[in-house]
């Protein structure tokens, strides 16, 4: 195991994040604040879901949305840029295994996801009186959801041949699934048929499980959510490592 190599790649990812801090750290915090002001303080001011205010209900969804977005963006843009201007070759010729390279990119994304999630949470503490219902579940969901979307980011970056391709998944899949997955609503408010359809949306389990970890309220069974998230993390990460191993669109 090349621990120094892995550590170097993780640190390199962090250097990148710090160099583009105005692009990757502040925007999710600002946009979450805007959501809170619009949906929490105005439209949802007198609205409750179950026993909790809409504002408290909304916060976990917003955090999870940004965990998903940021982990995907971090790994996909970093790897694709590496391919685009060829500095990925530094890693491909180095004595690092395929999964060490994949892990390096992955940890960079996980770290960014944790930083953003915690910063948003700290900012929200100024507006809501809430803690974390289960710290270990909070960590569990951020960790495994960021693994899923960092892995998907790597897969997309390997497949992509131009920057435009990176937006395809985000625009046509992640964003619609996020909105239908319960960031802003409880699926119990939907007609029965849409409740059932929501259950085939994997992002529902991520958002619902994370909501439980923060406020102790969920639409589904949190252990089912944990299992779904774990299996998806395993599958997506394994597939990303496999693509690195065969050198998919990396080696000619």
């Amino acid at each position, binding site marked *: 195991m090349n621990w120094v190599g892995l550590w170097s790649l993780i640190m390199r990812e962090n250097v990148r994040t710090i160099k583009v801090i105005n692009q990757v750290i502040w925007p999710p915090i600002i946009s979450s604040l805007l959501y809170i002001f619009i949906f929490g303080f105005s439209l949802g001011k007198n609205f409750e879901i179950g026993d909790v205010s809409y504002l408290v209900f909304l916060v976990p969804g917003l955090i999870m949305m940004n965990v998903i977005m940021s982990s995907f963006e971090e790994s996909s843009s970093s790897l694709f840029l590496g391919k685009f201007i060829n500095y990925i070759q*530094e890693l491909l010729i180095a004595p690092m295994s395929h999964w060490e390279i994949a892990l390096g990119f992955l940890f960079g994304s996980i770290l960014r996801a944790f930083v953003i999630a915690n910063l948003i949470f700290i900012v929200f503490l100024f507006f809501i009186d809430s803690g974390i219902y289960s710290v270990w579940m909070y960590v569990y969901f951020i960790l495994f959801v960021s693994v899923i979307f960092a892995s998907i980011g790597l897969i997309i970056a390997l497949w992509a041949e131009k920057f435009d391709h990176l937006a395809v998944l985000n625009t046509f899949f992640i964003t619609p699934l996020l909105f239908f997955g319960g960031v802003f609503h409880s699926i119990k408010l939907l007609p029965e048929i849409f409740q059932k359809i929501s259950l085939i949306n994997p992002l529902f389990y991520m958002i619902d499980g994370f909501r439980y970890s923060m406020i102790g309220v969920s639409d589904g069974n949190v252990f089912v959510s944990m299992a779904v998230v774990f299996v998806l993390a395993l599958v997506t990460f394994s597939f990303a490592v496999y693509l690195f191993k065969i050198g998919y669109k990396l080696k000619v």
Partner: protein
Amino acid sequence: MKALSIKNLHKSYPGIKAVDGVSFDIEEGDFFGFLGPNGAGKTTTINCVIGLAKFSDGRIEIFGKDNKKDFIDARKLVGIAPQEYNFDPYLNIEDVLIYQAGYYGISKKKILPRVKELLKQFDLDGKKEVDFRKLSGGMKRRLTLARALVHSPKLLILDEPTAGVDVGLRLDIHKYLKKINGEGVTILLTSHYIDEIEKLCNKTCIINNGKIIANDLTKNLVDDLDTGHTEILTDKKSKVKKIENVEFNGNKIIVWNKGKDKMKEVFDYLSEQKIKVLDVKSVKDSLQDIFLRLTKK
């Protein structure tokens, strides 16, 4: 010991056989020139060695380590300076070297003295906190070399290391490469400056259309494939006589080097005709002439 051993390497792209049964060895300590026209298969061969290209058939060993099965150990021994600049845009020059060493398993603490030494060696120490995009072409070339050397590789692969640099820097690079080769670093050099290969490399291999067409000591290559000749100028036209490797062209007679042993016969023949010799001139082939002749076949 063989620093690099390539056996029966085959690599194809759709519709193109880029490398077709390439085999050659580089002994430890060699300064090995790898020549070929554009598209001959040089870069593909190098990419197969360093792991950037997948090859369908053949075997590559670096200091006895299989570059597929033992790729981790094999890669530790190799440093590569590619022709194209491929630096990480988020790192300054010093960090480029520190992170590169990191990827090779060497910690920042351990590598810092080496980084300082290389920055000084390549006259980059005043620019260590500068972004590589702000460097001149020559500085970028020097940084490429420093990065290839930072983990002290035993085999250094240089793809056009002096492309686009001025004569002074070219000579400095030659001097440095000679020095580290003398210290035991095996070097594989590709260059479009054939005089560079002739000057630096003790062995030269020529590849064309994916096949090795010559591989020998550079000196032997120049001697054996030499189509140099001797020109004899006379005071009047000589009658043509059929002598192997000798051409009679009026008052100029060409004796090809392969027919050197016929020289006495030629002079005797001229003497019989009472023709005076005005001048004798030896014309020697350079590696460049040999390269052009071989690759144009």
